[in-house]
Protein backbone atom coordinates (compact mmCIF):
# COMPACT_ATOMS: atom_id res chain seq x y z
CA UNK A 1 0.00 0.00 0.00
CA UNK A 2 1.23 3.47 -0.79
CA UNK A 3 1.27 5.38 2.49
CA UNK A 4 1.74 8.69 0.81
CA UNK A 5 -1.73 8.68 -0.67
CA UNK A 6 -3.44 8.16 2.70
CA UNK A 7 -5.12 11.38 3.75
CA UNK A 8 -3.90 13.23 6.83
CA UNK A 9 -6.29 14.94 9.20
CA UNK A 10 -9.75 15.41 7.75
CA UNK A 11 -9.79 19.01 8.93
CA UNK A 12 -6.23 19.99 9.75
CA UNK A 13 -6.77 23.01 11.96
CA UNK A 14 -9.35 21.74 14.47
CA UNK A 15 -8.04 18.17 14.38
CA UNK A 16 -4.49 19.24 15.25
CA UNK A 17 -5.83 21.54 17.95
CA UNK A 18 -7.96 18.75 19.43
CA UNK A 19 -5.09 16.26 19.42
CA UNK A 20 -2.77 18.82 20.96
CA UNK A 21 -5.20 19.56 23.78
CA UNK A 22 -5.52 15.85 24.49
CA UNK A 23 -1.74 15.56 24.67
CA UNK A 24 -1.49 18.70 26.80
CA UNK A 25 -3.99 17.20 29.22
CA UNK A 26 -2.03 13.95 29.31
CA UNK A 27 1.28 15.76 29.92
CA UNK A 28 -0.31 17.97 32.56
CA UNK A 29 -1.72 14.95 34.39
CA UNK A 30 0.91 12.20 34.13
CA UNK A 31 -0.59 8.74 34.02
CA UNK A 32 -4.06 9.98 33.09
CA UNK A 33 -5.47 8.13 30.09
CA UNK A 34 -6.85 10.55 27.54
CA UNK A 35 -8.61 9.91 24.24
CA UNK A 36 -7.21 11.62 21.13
CA UNK A 37 -10.32 12.65 19.22
CA UNK A 38 -9.62 12.90 15.49
CA UNK A 39 -10.25 9.80 13.42
CA UNK A 40 -7.93 9.31 10.48
CA UNK A 41 -6.61 6.70 8.10
CA UNK A 42 -3.38 5.34 9.51
CA UNK A 43 -0.37 3.63 7.98
CA UNK A 44 -0.09 -0.13 8.58
CA UNK A 45 0.94 -0.92 12.14
CA UNK A 46 0.07 2.55 13.46
CA UNK A 47 -2.67 3.17 15.98
CA UNK A 48 -4.79 6.27 15.38
CA UNK A 49 -3.36 8.09 18.42
CA UNK A 50 0.22 7.50 17.26
CA UNK A 51 -0.51 8.88 13.81
CA UNK A 52 -2.49 11.83 15.19
CA UNK A 53 0.34 12.87 17.52
CA UNK A 54 2.85 12.82 14.68
CA UNK A 55 0.64 14.94 12.44
CA UNK A 56 0.11 17.34 15.33
CA UNK A 57 3.71 17.74 16.41
CA UNK A 58 6.09 17.13 13.52
CA UNK A 59 7.30 19.32 10.70
CA UNK A 60 10.49 20.21 8.91
CA UNK A 61 12.00 21.48 12.19
CA UNK A 62 11.72 18.14 14.00
CA UNK A 63 13.91 15.17 13.04
CA UNK A 64 12.00 11.95 13.72
CA UNK A 65 13.52 8.57 14.52
CA UNK A 66 11.48 5.50 13.59
CA UNK A 67 12.09 2.03 14.98
CA UNK A 68 12.23 -0.88 12.55
CA UNK A 69 8.51 -1.60 12.86
CA UNK A 70 7.61 2.04 12.19
CA UNK A 71 10.03 2.31 9.30
CA UNK A 72 7.51 1.45 6.53
CA UNK A 73 5.53 4.56 7.45
CA UNK A 74 8.46 6.84 6.60
CA UNK A 75 6.99 8.02 3.26
CA UNK A 76 3.65 8.75 4.95
CA UNK A 77 5.39 10.82 7.61
CA UNK A 78 7.53 12.67 5.09
CA UNK A 79 4.56 13.43 2.84
CA UNK A 80 2.30 14.77 5.57
CA UNK A 81 4.78 16.53 7.84
CA UNK A 82 8.00 17.13 5.89
CA UNK A 83 9.88 15.95 8.97
CA UNK A 84 13.44 14.85 8.27
CA UNK A 85 14.54 11.38 9.41
CA UNK A 86 16.93 11.19 12.34
CA UNK A 87 19.66 8.65 11.68
CA UNK A 88 20.29 8.10 15.37
CA UNK A 89 17.84 8.11 18.28
CA UNK A 90 20.01 10.76 19.91
CA UNK A 91 19.43 13.15 17.00
CA UNK A 92 15.65 12.92 17.19
CA UNK A 93 13.14 15.47 18.42
CA UNK A 94 10.58 12.69 18.35
CA UNK A 95 11.13 8.95 18.39
CA UNK A 96 8.43 6.53 17.29
CA UNK A 97 8.53 3.10 18.86
CA UNK A 98 6.14 0.41 17.72
CA UNK A 99 8.09 -2.47 19.32
CA UNK A 100 8.39 -1.39 22.94
CA UNK A 101 9.87 -4.66 24.18
CA UNK A 102 12.99 -4.17 22.09
CA UNK A 103 13.32 -0.41 22.14
CA UNK A 104 16.73 1.22 22.61
CA UNK A 105 17.73 2.07 26.16
CA UNK A 106 16.55 5.47 27.39
CA UNK A 107 20.04 6.91 27.35
CA UNK A 108 20.28 6.27 23.61
CA UNK A 109 17.97 9.27 23.17
CA UNK A 110 18.77 12.92 23.67
CA UNK A 111 18.34 14.06 27.28
CA UNK A 112 19.26 17.68 26.60
CA UNK A 113 21.71 19.49 28.85
CA UNK A 114 21.33 21.21 32.19
CA UNK A 115 21.21 24.55 30.37
CA UNK A 116 19.09 23.37 27.43
CA UNK A 117 17.01 20.49 28.79
CA UNK A 118 14.33 21.19 26.17
CA UNK A 119 16.66 19.86 23.46
CA UNK A 120 15.59 16.36 24.53
CA UNK A 121 13.82 13.65 22.53
CA UNK A 122 10.13 13.00 23.14
CA UNK A 123 9.30 9.29 22.85
CA UNK A 124 6.04 8.15 21.32
CA UNK A 125 5.71 4.54 22.37
CA UNK A 126 2.81 2.54 20.99
CA UNK A 127 1.72 -0.28 23.29
CA UNK A 128 -0.91 -2.97 23.11
CA UNK A 129 -2.77 -1.88 26.22
CA UNK A 130 -3.02 1.09 28.59
CA UNK A 131 -5.03 0.96 31.78
CA UNK A 132 -5.25 2.76 35.07
CA UNK A 133 -4.63 -0.45 36.98
CA UNK A 134 -1.97 -0.51 39.66
CA UNK A 135 1.20 -1.62 37.90
CA UNK A 136 3.00 1.67 38.52
CA UNK A 137 2.50 4.25 41.23
CA UNK A 138 3.21 7.74 39.98
CA UNK A 139 3.98 10.95 41.84
CA UNK A 140 5.16 14.39 40.87
CA UNK A 141 3.97 17.61 39.23
CA UNK A 142 0.52 17.26 37.69
CA UNK A 143 -0.52 14.54 40.12
CA UNK A 144 -2.66 15.53 43.09
CA UNK A 145 -1.44 12.78 45.36
CA UNK A 146 -0.78 9.58 43.50
CA UNK A 147 -1.72 8.15 40.09
CA UNK A 148 -1.63 4.63 38.76
CA UNK A 149 -0.87 3.38 35.32
CA UNK A 150 -0.42 0.01 33.73
CA UNK A 151 1.35 -0.26 30.39
CA UNK A 152 1.64 -3.56 28.53
CA UNK A 153 4.71 -4.81 26.75
CA UNK A 154 7.65 -2.99 28.32
CA UNK A 155 10.72 -4.80 29.56
CA UNK A 156 11.53 -4.84 33.27
CA UNK A 157 14.81 -3.25 32.41
CA UNK A 158 13.11 -0.33 30.68
CA UNK A 159 10.94 0.25 33.75
CA UNK A 160 14.07 0.30 35.91
CA UNK A 161 15.68 2.86 33.59
CA UNK A 162 12.59 5.04 33.67
CA UNK A 163 12.31 4.82 37.47
CA UNK A 164 15.87 6.13 37.72
CA UNK A 165 15.31 9.01 35.28
CA UNK A 166 14.25 11.84 37.66
CA UNK A 167 17.72 11.91 39.22
CA UNK A 168 19.02 13.53 36.01
CA UNK A 169 16.44 16.36 36.08
CA UNK A 170 16.24 18.79 34.32
CA UNK A 171 17.81 16.47 31.75
CA UNK A 172 15.69 13.57 30.62
CA UNK A 173 13.14 12.37 28.12
CA UNK A 174 9.38 12.68 28.10
CA UNK A 175 7.39 9.62 27.08
CA UNK A 176 3.92 9.41 25.57
CA UNK A 177 2.30 5.98 25.38
CA UNK A 178 -0.31 5.41 22.71
CA UNK A 179 -2.79 2.61 22.29
CA UNK A 180 -5.70 2.73 19.90
CA UNK A 181 -7.21 6.18 20.38
CA UNK A 182 -5.74 6.53 23.88
CA UNK A 183 -2.62 8.16 25.22
CA UNK A 184 -0.93 8.58 28.59
CA UNK A 185 2.21 10.55 29.32
CA UNK A 186 5.19 10.30 31.62
CA UNK A 187 7.03 13.62 31.60
CA UNK A 188 10.53 13.48 33.03
CA UNK A 189 9.37 14.87 36.38
CA UNK A 190 7.14 11.89 37.14
CA UNK A 191 8.49 9.56 39.80
CA UNK A 192 7.61 5.99 39.00
CA UNK A 193 7.46 3.13 41.43
CA UNK A 194 6.89 -0.30 39.93
Amino acid sequence: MDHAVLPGFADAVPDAQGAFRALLEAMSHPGRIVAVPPALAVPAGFDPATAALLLTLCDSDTPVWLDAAAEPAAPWLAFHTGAPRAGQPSAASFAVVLSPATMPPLDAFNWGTDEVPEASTTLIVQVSRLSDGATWRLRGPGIKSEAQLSVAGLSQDWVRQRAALPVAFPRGVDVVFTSGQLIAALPRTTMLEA
Partner: protein
Amino acid sequence: MNHTSALAGEEGYNFAFLDEQTKRMIRRAILKAVAIPGHQIPFGSREMPLSYGWGTGGIQLTAAVIGRDDTLKVIDQGADDTTNAVSIRGFFRRMTGVRTTERTDEATVVQTRHRIPETPLSEGQIIVYQVPIPEPLRWLEPRESETRKMHGLAEYGAMHVKLYEDIVRYGRIETAYDYPVLVNGRYLMRPSPIPKFDNPKMDRMPALQLFGAGREKRIYAVPPYTEVKSLDFEDHPFEVERWEQSCALCGSNDSFLDEIVTDDQGGHAFVCSDTDYCTRRRAAGHEGEGMPEGYLQPSEAAEVLHHPPSALRAPSPSGGRDSDLPPEGEGGAQRRKGDASSGTAFRAGLRP
Protein backbone atom coordinates in the same frame (compact mmCIF):
# COMPACT_ATOMS: atom_id res chain seq x y z
CA MET B 1 1.23 19.23 3.15
CA ASN B 2 -1.35 20.58 5.54
CA HIS B 3 -4.21 22.68 4.45
CA THR B 4 -5.56 25.32 6.72
CA SER B 5 -9.14 26.23 7.23
CA ALA B 6 -10.74 29.04 9.09
CA LEU B 7 -13.34 27.73 11.49
CA ALA B 8 -15.27 30.81 12.32
CA GLY B 9 -12.57 33.42 12.48
CA GLU B 10 -11.68 36.44 10.41
CA GLU B 11 -11.77 35.84 6.69
CA GLY B 12 -8.33 35.77 5.10
CA TYR B 13 -6.65 34.68 8.33
CA ASN B 14 -6.07 31.26 9.81
CA PHE B 15 -8.11 30.31 12.88
CA ALA B 16 -6.61 32.20 15.84
CA PHE B 17 -4.40 34.26 13.49
CA LEU B 18 -1.24 32.13 13.72
CA ASP B 19 -0.37 29.77 10.88
CA GLU B 20 -0.29 26.06 11.68
CA GLN B 21 3.50 25.77 11.60
CA THR B 22 3.79 28.51 14.18
CA LYS B 23 1.16 26.86 16.35
CA ARG B 24 3.08 23.57 16.15
CA MET B 25 6.28 25.29 17.21
CA ILE B 26 4.52 26.95 20.15
CA ARG B 27 2.71 23.75 21.09
CA ARG B 28 5.99 21.84 21.19
CA ALA B 29 7.43 24.55 23.42
CA ILE B 30 4.38 24.37 25.71
CA LEU B 31 4.76 20.60 26.09
CA LYS B 32 8.44 20.99 27.00
CA ALA B 33 7.54 23.77 29.42
CA VAL B 34 5.02 21.50 31.16
CA ALA B 35 7.59 18.70 31.35
CA ILE B 36 10.23 21.02 32.89
CA PRO B 37 8.19 23.15 35.30
CA GLY B 38 9.48 26.69 35.69
CA HIS B 39 12.15 26.41 32.99
CA GLN B 40 12.02 29.07 30.28
CA ILE B 41 11.83 27.66 26.76
CA PRO B 42 13.01 30.02 23.98
CA PHE B 43 10.54 30.10 21.11
CA GLY B 44 10.24 31.78 17.73
CA SER B 45 7.87 34.47 18.92
CA ARG B 46 6.03 36.00 15.99
CA GLU B 47 5.34 39.62 15.20
CA MET B 48 1.76 39.99 16.26
CA PRO B 49 -0.64 42.71 15.20
CA LEU B 50 -0.64 43.94 18.80
CA SER B 51 2.29 45.71 20.39
CA TYR B 52 5.10 43.92 22.17
CA GLY B 53 4.65 44.51 25.87
CA TRP B 54 0.89 44.43 25.45
CA GLY B 55 0.44 40.70 25.84
CA THR B 56 1.88 39.20 22.66
CA GLY B 57 3.32 36.24 24.58
CA GLY B 58 0.01 35.44 26.21
CA ILE B 59 -1.80 35.98 22.95
CA GLN B 60 0.44 33.51 21.13
CA LEU B 61 -0.06 30.91 23.85
CA THR B 62 -3.81 31.37 23.80
CA ALA B 63 -3.82 31.20 20.00
CA ALA B 64 -1.86 27.93 20.05
CA VAL B 65 -4.11 26.36 22.68
CA ILE B 66 -7.60 27.60 21.87
CA GLY B 67 -10.20 25.61 19.95
CA ARG B 68 -13.75 26.23 18.92
CA ASP B 69 -15.16 24.56 22.04
CA ASP B 70 -13.29 26.85 24.40
CA THR B 71 -14.68 29.72 26.40
CA LEU B 72 -12.25 32.57 26.85
CA LYS B 73 -11.95 35.12 29.62
CA VAL B 74 -9.45 37.96 29.38
CA ILE B 75 -8.55 40.17 32.33
CA ASP B 76 -6.10 42.95 32.98
CA GLN B 77 -5.57 44.12 36.57
CA GLY B 78 -8.22 41.57 37.53
CA ALA B 79 -10.87 43.37 35.51
CA ASP B 80 -12.64 42.30 32.33
CA ASP B 81 -13.33 45.90 31.35
CA THR B 82 -9.83 47.38 31.19
CA THR B 83 -9.09 48.61 27.69
CA ASN B 84 -6.34 46.14 26.85
CA ALA B 85 -8.40 43.21 28.10
CA VAL B 86 -11.26 44.45 25.94
CA SER B 87 -8.92 44.75 22.99
CA ILE B 88 -7.43 41.25 23.37
CA ARG B 89 -10.84 39.68 23.91
CA GLY B 90 -12.03 41.46 20.77
CA PHE B 91 -9.01 40.14 18.86
CA PHE B 92 -9.84 36.54 19.73
CA ARG B 93 -13.53 36.95 19.09
CA ARG B 94 -12.65 38.25 15.67
CA MET B 95 -9.97 35.66 14.92
CA THR B 96 -11.66 32.56 16.39
CA GLY B 97 -15.32 33.26 16.95
CA VAL B 98 -15.11 31.41 20.28
CA ARG B 99 -17.38 32.16 23.19
CA THR B 100 -16.10 34.71 25.67
CA THR B 101 -17.15 35.19 29.24
CA GLU B 102 -16.47 37.32 32.28
CA ARG B 103 -17.18 34.46 34.65
CA THR B 104 -14.06 32.80 35.95
CA ASP B 105 -15.88 29.54 36.56
CA GLU B 106 -17.23 29.39 32.99
CA ALA B 107 -13.93 29.96 31.23
CA THR B 108 -11.80 27.11 29.92
CA VAL B 109 -8.97 29.50 29.10
CA VAL B 110 -8.24 32.62 31.14
CA GLN B 111 -5.70 35.08 29.78
CA THR B 112 -4.47 37.47 32.42
CA ARG B 113 -2.19 40.37 33.04
CA HIS B 114 -1.12 41.13 36.61
CA ARG B 115 -3.71 39.14 38.56
CA ILE B 116 -4.94 35.64 39.36
CA PRO B 117 -8.73 35.58 39.77
CA GLU B 118 -10.05 35.37 43.32
CA THR B 119 -12.40 32.52 42.37
CA PRO B 120 -10.22 29.43 42.66
CA LEU B 121 -9.39 27.88 39.31
CA SER B 122 -10.20 24.24 38.87
CA GLU B 123 -8.84 21.21 37.07
CA GLY B 124 -9.17 21.41 33.30
CA GLN B 125 -8.87 25.18 33.19
CA ILE B 126 -5.82 26.86 31.69
CA ILE B 127 -4.57 30.23 32.89
CA VAL B 128 -2.30 32.11 30.49
CA TYR B 129 -0.14 34.84 32.00
CA GLN B 130 1.23 37.75 29.98
CA VAL B 131 4.86 38.15 30.98
CA PRO B 132 6.98 41.26 30.35
CA ILE B 133 10.34 40.03 31.68
CA PRO B 134 10.53 36.27 32.21
CA GLU B 135 14.00 36.06 33.73
CA PRO B 136 13.91 36.18 37.55
CA LEU B 137 17.65 36.84 37.69
CA ARG B 138 17.56 39.68 35.15
CA TRP B 139 18.05 42.55 37.61
CA LEU B 140 20.93 40.68 39.21
CA GLU B 141 22.58 39.62 35.95
CA PRO B 142 21.62 41.31 32.67
CA ARG B 143 23.35 38.74 30.47
CA GLU B 144 21.29 35.89 29.05
CA SER B 145 24.39 33.73 28.62
CA GLU B 146 25.08 34.03 32.37
CA THR B 147 21.54 33.55 33.67
CA ARG B 148 21.18 30.42 31.54
CA LYS B 149 24.21 28.95 33.31
CA MET B 150 22.84 29.96 36.70
CA HIS B 151 19.58 28.12 35.98
CA GLY B 152 21.51 25.12 34.69
CA LEU B 153 23.34 24.88 37.98
CA ALA B 154 20.36 26.00 40.12
CA GLU B 155 22.68 28.69 41.40
CA TYR B 156 20.19 30.99 43.07
CA GLY B 157 22.19 32.27 46.02
CA ALA B 158 22.30 35.78 44.55
CA MET B 159 18.52 36.06 44.73
CA HIS B 160 18.47 35.09 48.40
CA VAL B 161 21.18 37.64 49.06
CA LYS B 162 19.16 40.32 47.30
CA LEU B 163 16.06 39.56 49.38
CA TYR B 164 18.10 39.42 52.55
CA GLU B 165 19.61 42.82 51.81
CA ASP B 166 16.05 44.13 51.80
CA ILE B 167 15.50 42.71 55.25
CA VAL B 168 18.69 44.27 56.53
CA ARG B 169 17.82 47.65 55.03
CA TYR B 170 14.07 47.84 55.52
CA GLY B 171 13.36 45.17 58.08
CA ARG B 172 11.27 43.31 55.51
CA ILE B 173 11.33 42.15 51.92
CA GLU B 174 10.20 45.12 49.89
CA THR B 175 9.31 43.22 46.71
CA ALA B 176 5.58 43.73 46.40
CA TYR B 177 4.86 42.14 43.04
CA ASP B 178 6.56 39.75 40.63
CA TYR B 179 7.82 38.11 43.80
CA PRO B 180 10.20 35.25 42.90
CA VAL B 181 9.12 31.66 43.41
CA LEU B 182 10.80 28.28 43.32
CA VAL B 183 8.92 25.75 41.21
CA ASN B 184 8.89 22.09 42.19
CA GLY B 185 11.99 22.72 44.29
CA ARG B 186 14.16 23.34 41.24
CA TYR B 187 13.62 26.38 39.01
CA LEU B 188 13.52 29.96 40.12
CA MET B 189 10.64 31.61 38.29
CA ARG B 190 9.04 35.00 37.88
CA PRO B 191 5.31 34.74 38.41
CA SER B 192 4.85 37.76 36.09
CA PRO B 193 3.98 41.02 37.81
CA ILE B 194 1.11 39.69 39.89
CA PRO B 195 0.97 41.15 43.40
CA LYS B 196 2.55 38.81 45.92
CA PHE B 197 -0.97 38.58 47.32
CA ASP B 198 -1.62 36.15 44.46
CA ASN B 199 1.50 34.02 44.91
CA PRO B 200 -0.12 31.48 47.26
CA LYS B 201 -2.78 30.77 44.62
CA MET B 202 -0.08 29.39 42.32
CA ASP B 203 0.95 26.72 44.77
CA ARG B 204 -0.56 23.34 43.87
CA MET B 205 -3.15 25.09 41.69
CA PRO B 206 -5.43 22.50 40.03
CA ALA B 207 -5.38 24.46 36.74
CA LEU B 208 -2.54 24.44 34.23
CA GLN B 209 -0.52 27.67 34.32
CA LEU B 210 1.17 28.86 31.11
CA PHE B 211 3.41 31.89 30.88
CA GLY B 212 4.25 33.69 27.64
CA ALA B 213 6.76 36.48 27.03
CA GLY B 214 6.47 37.56 23.38
CA ARG B 215 9.10 40.26 23.21
CA GLU B 216 11.57 38.20 25.23
CA LYS B 217 10.56 35.06 23.32
CA ARG B 218 10.14 32.68 26.24
CA ILE B 219 7.45 30.21 27.32
CA TYR B 220 7.25 28.51 30.69
CA ALA B 221 4.68 26.58 32.64
CA VAL B 222 3.59 25.16 35.95
CA PRO B 223 1.61 21.92 35.68
CA PRO B 224 -1.38 21.35 37.97
CA TYR B 225 -0.69 20.40 41.60
CA THR B 226 2.89 21.58 41.47
CA GLU B 227 4.66 23.14 44.42
CA VAL B 228 5.29 26.86 43.92
CA LYS B 229 7.11 28.34 46.88
CA SER B 230 7.67 32.04 47.37
CA LEU B 231 11.25 32.61 48.50
CA ASP B 232 11.59 33.51 52.16
CA PHE B 233 13.69 32.98 55.26
CA GLU B 234 12.97 31.09 58.45
CA ASP B 235 12.97 34.27 60.51
CA HIS B 236 11.17 36.25 57.81
CA PRO B 237 8.46 34.01 56.38
CA PHE B 238 6.67 35.06 53.21
CA GLU B 239 3.50 36.99 53.90
CA VAL B 240 0.89 38.70 51.75
CA GLU B 241 -0.54 42.15 52.14
CA ARG B 242 -3.82 42.77 53.92
CA TRP B 243 -6.21 45.68 53.88
CA GLU B 244 -7.83 47.28 56.87
CA GLN B 245 -10.70 48.20 54.56
CA SER B 246 -13.19 45.96 52.84
CA CYS B 247 -14.66 46.32 49.35
CA ALA B 248 -17.05 49.28 49.26
CA LEU B 249 -19.27 47.42 46.82
CA CYS B 250 -19.38 43.78 47.95
CA GLY B 251 -17.89 44.00 51.42
CA SER B 252 -15.21 41.39 50.73
CA ASN B 253 -12.34 41.59 53.18
CA ASP B 254 -10.18 38.88 51.70
CA SER B 255 -9.81 39.94 48.08
CA PHE B 256 -7.22 42.22 46.50
CA LEU B 257 -8.51 45.78 46.70
CA ASP B 258 -7.94 48.66 44.31
CA GLU B 259 -7.77 52.09 45.79
CA ILE B 260 -10.00 54.51 43.91
CA VAL B 261 -9.57 58.22 44.24
CA THR B 262 -13.10 59.56 44.57
CA ASP B 263 -12.67 63.31 44.68
CA ASP B 264 -10.01 65.97 44.60
CA GLN B 265 -9.98 66.27 48.40
CA GLY B 266 -7.98 63.08 48.96
CA GLY B 267 -11.08 60.98 49.38
CA HIS B 268 -10.70 57.34 48.40
CA ALA B 269 -12.52 54.08 48.45
CA PHE B 270 -11.48 50.48 48.08
CA VAL B 271 -13.08 48.03 45.66
CA CYS B 272 -12.26 44.50 44.49
CA SER B 273 -9.73 44.36 41.68
CA ASP B 274 -11.45 41.18 40.44
CA THR B 275 -14.59 42.58 38.83
CA ASP B 276 -16.19 39.19 38.22
CA TYR B 277 -15.65 38.12 41.82
CA CYS B 278 -17.16 41.36 43.06
CA THR B 279 -20.16 41.09 40.72
CA ARG B 280 -20.87 37.49 41.80
CA ARG B 281 -20.71 38.43 45.46
CA ARG B 282 -23.13 41.28 45.01
CA ALA B 283 -25.45 39.05 42.99
CA ALA B 284 -25.39 36.67 45.96
CA GLY B 285 -26.54 39.48 48.24
CA HIS B 286 -23.24 40.67 49.73
CA GLU B 287 -23.02 44.40 50.18
CA GLY B 288 -20.31 46.84 51.13
CA GLU B 289 -20.54 50.23 52.72
CA GLY B 290 -21.08 51.83 49.34
CA MET B 291 -19.16 54.40 47.37
CA PRO B 292 -18.86 57.90 48.79
CA GLU B 293 -21.71 60.34 48.35
CA GLY B 294 -21.77 62.01 44.94
CA TYR B 295 -19.45 59.48 43.32
CA LEU B 296 -20.56 58.82 39.78
CA GLN B 297 -20.04 55.27 38.67
CA PRO B 298 -18.45 54.73 35.28
CA SER B 299 -21.53 53.06 33.76
CA GLU B 300 -23.55 56.14 34.57
CA ALA B 301 -20.75 58.35 33.38
CA ALA B 302 -20.78 56.60 30.03
CA GLU B 303 -24.37 57.62 29.55
CA VAL B 304 -23.65 61.32 29.80
CA LEU B 305 -20.68 61.36 27.50
CA HIS B 306 -20.47 63.68 24.65
CA HIS B 307 -20.47 62.46 21.11
CA PRO B 308 -18.63 64.29 18.33
CA PRO B 309 -20.99 66.61 16.49
CA SER B 310 -21.74 65.02 13.16
CA ALA B 311 -20.60 68.13 11.31
CA LEU B 312 -17.04 67.49 12.44
CA ARG B 313 -16.99 63.86 11.46
CA ALA B 314 -15.55 62.57 8.27
CA PRO B 315 -17.97 60.92 5.89
CA SER B 316 -18.41 57.29 6.80
CA PRO B 317 -15.77 55.27 4.94
CA SER B 318 -17.52 52.95 2.57
CA GLY B 319 -17.08 49.24 2.97
CA GLY B 320 -14.70 47.06 4.86
CA ARG B 321 -14.28 48.45 8.30
CA ASP B 322 -17.77 49.39 9.37
CA SER B 323 -17.64 47.01 12.30
CA ASP B 324 -14.98 49.22 13.86
CA LEU B 325 -17.15 52.27 13.83
CA PRO B 326 -18.83 53.42 17.00
CA PRO B 327 -22.53 53.14 17.46
CA GLU B 328 -24.30 56.32 16.54
CA GLY B 329 -25.35 59.12 18.85
CA GLU B 330 -25.10 58.64 22.57
CA GLY B 331 -26.31 62.18 23.18
CA GLY B 332 -25.66 64.17 26.32
CA ALA B 333 -23.58 67.24 26.61
CA GLN B 334 -21.34 67.73 29.60
CA ARG B 335 -19.33 65.55 31.84
CA ARG B 336 -20.68 65.78 35.33
CA LYS B 337 -18.38 66.87 38.08
CA GLY B 338 -16.85 64.31 40.32
CA ASP B 339 -16.77 61.42 37.90
CA ALA B 340 -13.05 60.87 38.12
CA SER B 341 -11.55 57.41 38.67
CA SER B 342 -11.29 54.16 36.87
CA GLY B 343 -13.97 55.13 34.42
CA THR B 344 -11.52 57.41 32.65
CA ALA B 345 -10.31 54.61 30.43
CA PHE B 346 -13.68 54.32 28.73
CA ARG B 347 -13.93 57.96 27.91
CA ALA B 348 -10.55 58.25 26.31
CA GLY B 349 -11.91 57.50 22.89
CA LEU B 350 -14.44 60.25 22.73
CA ARG B 351 -13.86 63.50 21.05
CA PRO B 352 -14.90 66.44 23.18
